[in-house]
């Protein structure tokens, strides 16, 4: 139970989805029924529910499985968290993206992006004007992690480097190095570039010629 605490996902910041007992019954509902049953049972047994320890004991009994699951799950990630707490942030960032990708079956794209974002800073000079070309769903990450580490510009025409991570592929690069980008349905040419690094046909770094 509560395995979500041990994982990294997109949605856990918004909600922890129900955990089911015996296949179909949400754990919260099962334990809530147990809570009500215990109160009713205590009444019939004749225990004094007004005594503060009786009710506290019932509260603790029904909460115990969740408290146990909470600490159990956190203890399962303790060695990894301890190791990560002294590891470089970049390494943890890459691992976090890969974990999230794996947990949610995202096809490896986030894991690849995590690696790419870290390697880009080794290959592109920090002061060179650089344009990022990431798919819209990923640009939030690239803009954040590379801001302050690279000299980012908005206009491709001002850029000396072009960092592309765009599986959507709304651009093309000819064999002679001419780069064009889809602008409102029309391919616009942005001059000649050479490949500095290529990780995948849609993941590459270009330098203006």
């Amino acid at each position, binding site marked *: 139970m509560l395995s979500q605490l041990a994982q990294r996902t997109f949605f856990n910041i918004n909600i922890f*989805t129900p955990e089911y007992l015996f296949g179909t019954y*949400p754990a919260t*509902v099962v334990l809530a029924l147990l809570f009500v049953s215990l109160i009713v049972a205590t009444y019939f047994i004749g225990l004094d529910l007004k005594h503060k320890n009786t009710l506290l004991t019932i509260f603790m009994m029904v909460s115990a499985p969740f408290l146990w699951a909470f600490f159990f799950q956190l203890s399962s990630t303790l060695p990894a968290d301890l190791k990560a707490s002294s590891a470089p942030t970049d390494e943890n960032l890459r691992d976090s993206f890969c974990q999230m990708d794996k947990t949610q079956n995202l096809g490896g794209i986030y894991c690849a992006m995590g690696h790419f974002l870290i390697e880009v800073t080794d290959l592109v000079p920090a002061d060179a004007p650089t344009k990022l070309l990431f798919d819209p769903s990923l640009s939030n990450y690239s803009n954040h992690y590379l801001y302050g580490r690279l000299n980012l510009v908005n206009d491709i025409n001002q850029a000396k480097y072009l960092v592309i991570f765009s599986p959507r592929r709304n651009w093309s690069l000819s064999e002679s190095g001419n780069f064009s980008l889809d602008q409102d349905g029309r391919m616009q040419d942005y001059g000649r570039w050479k490949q500095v690094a290529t990780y995948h046909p849609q993941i590459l770094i270009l330098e203006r010629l």
Partner: protein
Amino acid sequence: MIICLLLFALLIIILGYGVLLFLPVSSRQPALALSFALGGGLITFQLFVARFYLHLNLGYWSLYLIIAEAIALFVWHFYRRSLVWPAFWSRPNNLLDSILTGALFLAGGLSLLRVFARPLIDYDALGVWSRRVQILYYHQSDLFNSASSVFWSMLAKPNYPWHLSLLAWLQTQVTGQFSISLINFLPWCYYLGLISTVYALVKEKLSRSWSLFLALLIATMPLVFQHSYSFYADLPLAFYLGASLLVWRRWLVNLNKADLCLAAALAGFALTVKSEAIFFVGPFVALTLLWLWKQSLLKAQARSLALLGPGLLWLIWLALQHLGVSNVAAGLGWHPEVLSKIRDAFFVAQSWQLWWYLVLVMLVLTWRNLINDKLFIFSATWFILSFGCFLILYCFTETYLYALDDTAFSRNLLLFLPLSASLLSDALSSWFNKS
């Protein structure tokens, strides 16, 4: 680095405590949490005025100014002989309390470990809150350069307040770096603050064991724990609302003006944390005025509400920029499909464990006694009014989409934890005291 982070937290607490010392002793508990709330609010209020109203570039001078203020306050209290060190800790008096205290420390420690182990990757934290810290840290002048891509109004959700980002910016000045790991230290501080506040809220009515146990339930809620190391504004807002509620409930009983001033200031700071605060501060003001009117104290104490000022200054700034607090797309309609989602968010999702069931069952068992409890009636009315605002928002506006896709409503429930803790403590208290 840990020392720098501790110094940063200490600076906030010292400044806040310097202000807290002006209040009567009875208004100062829990000293650490209230000092942190006051200190954080005062710091970000000043930084906001300096940056957004006076257009001053924030830098080390801001840090030195805050240190100077903290020193000046302490010198003042020292010479006035009003400097009293707070009692932060008292020994548990039985085995159960020791175990519960240990479990709370363990939860706090495990959360702190994740602060360092898990860098920020949450979408909105990056796009909204942390992005602002980055801009303040790297290219602050671009924030007010309309030709820049990071001009303030071009940022995601430009009408969201700046408290969290400004305070995190101050952290970068103390630590000397912007880090996507260290930035999560601030939510951890708010996590501890929320736990302390809930403990204090319950302790006003119940035994220490009950207070520790209910605080532990809140601390180990998966969603609360997740937010304890994620740079979002929901947990900080829950903390400010909880702190305000705690002091406000004291005021409802003792009608001490100092308590009302503090409650109003904390509610005002809540407005500078996240826009949703308006759904809580509105009912807070209405209920306060109602109680003042019933007690014939309108003339004597209504002016205390002027301490909502920091929040109002933020709203005025929004109005000057022709922005509202709402991020809701145009269009009204009835969206009953959200009701099942709302039910599931309360009672089926794992986010809150059994919390809402415990609250509900105890309220059902004790409602006959509670209807005569003034404190309960006011707190419950606050809950109902605030929740009503969210219900209207989700049932009748385009925001319903964020309930259907589980991206916002469940998080909004975080804000109701302190209020629900106070209702639960009222219910339990009446249960034990019933003849």
